[in-house]
């Protein structure tokens, strides 16, 4: 359930900083939780995927898909809902990669806690 922490960290950081602060969230959480690389990626990915995806989905619903449909047109996507999915994916990839970065740095700095 580490991804929830990533999501919360991302949410808090984005109140004050631009969009790339989700990478800070992933990175910092990576420093805290030492885990296998693939789990680090998965937690970072899922955390931001859920954060961005649910925010976009919320907008999608209250706006009745009006904006999402236009975004789909601009980005050449087949349906409005894909705008939500693409948004979540972009956030997720940055979240995942940044969490791996933090995770690997932590492993390098304090080798004792390393998991083989």
């Amino acid at each position, binding site marked *: 359930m580490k991804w929830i922490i990533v999501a919360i960290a991302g949410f808090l950081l984005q109140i004050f900083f631009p969009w790339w602060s989700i990478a800070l969230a992933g990175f910092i959480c990576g420093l805290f939780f030492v885990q296998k690389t693939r789990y680090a990626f998965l937690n970072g990915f899922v955390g931001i995927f859920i954060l961005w995806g649910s925010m976009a989905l919320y907008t999608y619903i209250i706006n*009745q898909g009006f904006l999402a449909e236009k975004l789909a047109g601009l980005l050449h996507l087949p349906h409005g809902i894909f705008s939500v999915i693409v948004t979540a994916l972009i956030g997720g990839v940055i979240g995942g990669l940044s969490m791996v970065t933090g995770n690997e740095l932590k492993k390098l700095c304090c080798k004792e806690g390393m998991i083989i």
Partner: protein
Amino acid sequence: MFDEIKSFQDMLTRIKFIVSLILTLFLIFLLNSRLGQMPPLGKFLDPFSGIWQNAHIPDIPEKLDRSIAELHDEVQIVFNERAVPHIFARNDHDLYYTAGYVTAMHRLWQMEFTAFAGLGRISEIAGESAMEFDRYLRRIGMSYGAEQIWELMQDDQEMKAILEAYSAGVNAWIAQLKPRQLPFEYKLLDYQPEPWTPLKTCALVMNISRTLSLRSQALRLTHLKAAWGKEAVLAFFPSYYEGAEPVISKGTQWDFAILPPDPPEESFIPQFVLRNLIDDIPEGIGSNNWAVSPDRSLTGNALFAADPHQPINLPSMWYEMQLNAPGINTYGVSFPGSPFILMGFNRNLAWGNTASTNLITDVFEIELDEENLNYFYENQWHPLELRLEKIKVRNGKTIVDTVRFTHHGPILYINNEKPFYQHIPVGHAMSWSALIPAETLRGVKLINTANDFSDFREGLSNITAPPQNYAFASIDGDIGMQNNGLWPLRWQNQGTFISDGRRAEFDIQGFIPFEYLPHEINPDRGFVSSANQVHTDSLYPFFYGWDFANDARAKTINNTLRENEQVSISDMKNLQLNAGNHEAKQWLQLMLDSVRGYLNSHPDIKLSDNFNFLLDSLKSWDKINSAKSIAATVFMHWRDELQAKLWKPLTEPLDDLPHQRPNMDISLKVLFHQSPVDYYEKLTGFSPQTGEILVTSLNKIIANLEAEKGPPGEQWEWWRFNGPFLKHWLNLKALSTERMKVSGSSLSPNAVRNSFGPSWRMVAEMSDPVKAWGIYPGGQTGNPASQGYNEFTIDWAEGNYYELKLYKNALEAVSENHILMRLKPED
């Protein structure tokens, strides 16, 4: 052994760290950058401050009470259910400040974008691809003209203060915007708004002039003259001809104290090889307006109607509002970026304008010296005035361009340059009366506060460009039509062809005084009307050009008004929505008779399978360009094809030179052996083969349509070829609308045609108080993420109108349950 594994693990971790770090940073960089036309995807799709947040921007702000230090007094803004602001202020400063504030609230991106277009600054947004367009705009003098207007205004403290207050209001709105509230298009194109300035408002004045009056066919006609001779060209492109329906009542007598100048004794044969000419106005630009006198109106009050036809953009080129302060109370539509109501009404009168395409753009052949620093005029060399234009290119360098001015006006392109539009003449200067600075904005303000026709005319006398037909009606029962602008005083046909820039006798000799411009008040026929057709009959003493709209719209309007002695408001609306086709009414029977005659005498002719079926549908056609009519589709294609076929023998030798065909009216006259057919016969050596031309062209377009759309059926319905669609300023399909099933044509009063059409429809009954209705396609908010972006469009397409309310005060406005916003000066 263990150590080796450990150091291998160690290295792996190190590699993983470095790879993921680089990948993360690289992706962030990539997703934060604009790639080609793609927005920076990470920044753009970020649901916290990217584009998703635009869906949370309300059309009317949630924070209704605001303190603003710059205000002198409290301002109340009442929004109706369509988000139209009714602004109630206690002084001019606060009124125009607030007009800027609310316009920016709804249309910030559009107003800045159109101002940039007016100043030739699009490259700053679009990059290198727009550079030549910007250069063109600078060369025709757009930024120069805007600067001249603003400079002239330095002596008019009142107007200067108004434009400054408006700018401050726009900037106050920009200042309180949070990054997540940045309008849609800024996020899409990844740039920031800059402060608004009065110069930008002046640039919008130049935009209107460019759209409506920068136009010359001199180059095309000069080529035709070389091929056909002057007499034939003048006969085929007449400034007035029998049977035309002018704006001003036929037979009007004019008593003028001045005469047109004499033509030069020696005519001019251009020496340069020419391939190009200036802007074309696309077919579809045009407008209707009319007013009905009290004795022909059902209720005994004067009636008024106006519907300008322009590009129907999203967001709309119009922004609806009411302006109320001591000394002013007016309602209507403004251009976002300009503080005044351009078309609308006040307590006393209603007004609206239509483009009048009289000639105010002249083209002069200029001889330059080798350094391109002097030009030859009256047997000596004169220095050119040079103006340096800096064009900033996004992510690139600043390009410095030189615009060369003669006393006629700017030289568009010098001999070794490639023009932006293929049809702009190289080595020529342009004289365009819109480049003469004037108090146009003061004129518009005077109209906003006019009490009667004389105030109205005084306002118009300040508006020097573009020339337009202004119709008006008052609660006193007066109706009138007045033209405006600097109309060059011409000898007969001066400016029809390219002029000699070397000789003083070809100069513009001055302008027709305002009092002598075409106008009429309370004419005997009981109505005034205009639809971009020729202004006057042959009694008017001055020549003012020949290139006017087909008068089919004018004939439908005038005939309808002549037949109806008790015009009601719903008659006025129905006439605006009328899709009748006067050209078909006038000519179709003749065309069909001629087809029948030809078929009877040529029984063996091979025709497409559907020929007879479609011929029958034309016979039973009601001559209305209804959305679902197939006959309308056939007729409209047929007329274009027969025109091409008729003139082919004469235009074919000119195919690789700019040229044009005589208009449809003249073409049909020639086809049916009416004047000026004699010139046709002289030039070709034969008479037009009417029946053959009609049958072969009809057969050809049927075959073409079958190939394109299959057998006649749903796919042939007229709206599929002509139905209107709204186009976003950036021409992005996702932000535009689909084609709509709407009746009309460029020949009908309801002049919808692709991305053109009635961009504002208004009718008014001049009772006391005035009752008015209006609508434009689009919506008040320019936010594409809001449902309000496009909320009027369906009603517009269906021909519905909204009631327009000119409230006396905020109390009255609020009593109708609207939202009240209060702006207060800080204590």
